[in-house]
């Protein structure tokens, strides 16, 4: 499968705090990669560096073979990398449908009727077509996150980044969001998911990456990694959470 994303020797520090200490990884098109690890391990920072929400201190990222450069191609590349956040970050002053159509209309100059038609399709896909005219604060957390997923999909991104998408949700709402994500994986979408949902990692992941203290400690197929972790740190982490 063609390589879609490549991270080379990524370093990131906040003041004196070293968060990423030389991370290299490759992602193939269609792959579902799940990143796990204790909090503070740098997994969210790695994800946020991929679309330069955090500026890496050192190292480089290649998207479809092209070096990501904030000075030239970043806007274009961000359009092709959708992101879903822990806190949803929906636009509270816009109706659900406008949350979804805003970026296609502004960035791709899609005509309003066309953008809305596509927006309603996507809402249908996440099971929320009847909420098109609602405002975000009229929705539950699970519904908001599903809208956020539809919003990311509206740009037809090649890669979807999920930053702990279920961590801010009440337990009974986690399932509905994971279900939508599972469907996306089955469609063959390329996904990079930072999560604590090990069930999702096992069931849907093509590859699991375990991070700790700013480095990738171990990676492999979920069956392999969960059943036979090779590194001590991986074993210790898994024994705590499984």
């Amino acid at each position, binding site marked *: 499968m063609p390589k879609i994303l490549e991270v080379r020797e990524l370093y990131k520090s906040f003041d004196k705090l070293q968060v990423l200490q030389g991370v290299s990884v490759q992602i193939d098109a269609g792959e579902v990669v799940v990143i796990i690890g204790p909090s503070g391990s740098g997994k969210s920072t790695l994800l946020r560096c991929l*679309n330069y*929400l955090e500026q890496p201190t050192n190292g480089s990222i290649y998207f479809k073979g092209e070096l990501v450069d904030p000075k030239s191609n970043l*806007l*274009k590349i*961000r*359009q*092709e*990398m*959708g*992101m879903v*956040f822990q*806190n949803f*970050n*929906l*636009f*509270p*002053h816009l109706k659900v449908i406008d949350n979804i159509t*805003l*970026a296609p209309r*502004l*960035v791709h100059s899609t005509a309003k009727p066309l953008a809305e038609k596509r927006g309603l399709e996507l809402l249908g896909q996440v099971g929320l077509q009847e909420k098109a005219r609602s*405002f975000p*604060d009229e929705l539950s957390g699970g519904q908001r996150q599903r809208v*956020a997923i539809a*919003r*990311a999909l509206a*740009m037809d991104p090649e890669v979807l*980044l999920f930053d702990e998408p279920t961590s801010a949700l009440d337990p009974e709402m986690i399932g509905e969001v994971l279900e939508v994500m599972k469907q996306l994986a089955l469609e063959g979408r390329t996904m990079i998911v930072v999560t604590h949902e090990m069930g999702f990692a096992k069931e849907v992941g093509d590859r699991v990456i375990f991070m700790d203290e700013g480095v990738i400690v171990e990676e492999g197929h979920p069956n392999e990694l969960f059943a036979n972790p090779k590194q001590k740190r991986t074993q210790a982490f898994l024994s705590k959470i499984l």
Partner: protein
Amino acid sequence: MLLTGAKLTVQLTSIAVFFGIILGTLTGIARLSKGPLRMLAAIYIDVIRGTPLLVQTFIVFYGLPSLIQRPIPAYVAAVLALSINSGAYVGEIVRSGIQSIDKGQWEAASSLGLSNYQTMRHIILPQAFRRIIPPLGNEFIALLKDSSLVSVIALEELVRKGQIIIGRTFRPFEIWTAVALIFFVMTFTVSRLVDYLERRMTPHA
């Protein structure tokens, strides 16, 4: 008589509010930018807030004409002085409004590929403006009252009209009370208007 003065007061203030918002929005954004504009905006705000409106009005009406070798009509000078003054205060209000918007809004917009300008225009400013309606309202009520200072350049707004009438009638108590009453009616109307706007805009902000 007094009412024609009140009309001019409302006119002056409305125009100054209009330009004040434009100037203030640009200033507020500049205060949060990187580079020389940031410094320029900070100086503008400090100088305007640190000097009396009365003196600013004198500078525009008496000082500027000698500099540009052309007279400036009192009306234009008044609008200019009030707008420049208001812009500085609105600038600080807009800055705080922008800063009050959650960082996640920027991140979500950026992740969708929106440019900084698009994010500011469609995501940040609409939310910021809803939040700053109350302080903006205060600023405009203050401006309505402060506009009486331009009576010193012989512009016949409400206060100046009052002085003229007193000069003819010698009834200072009645006239000043009437002037105060008219100001009160105007500011009260504005504050009710602001309340209404705030109520209408906040359910989804």
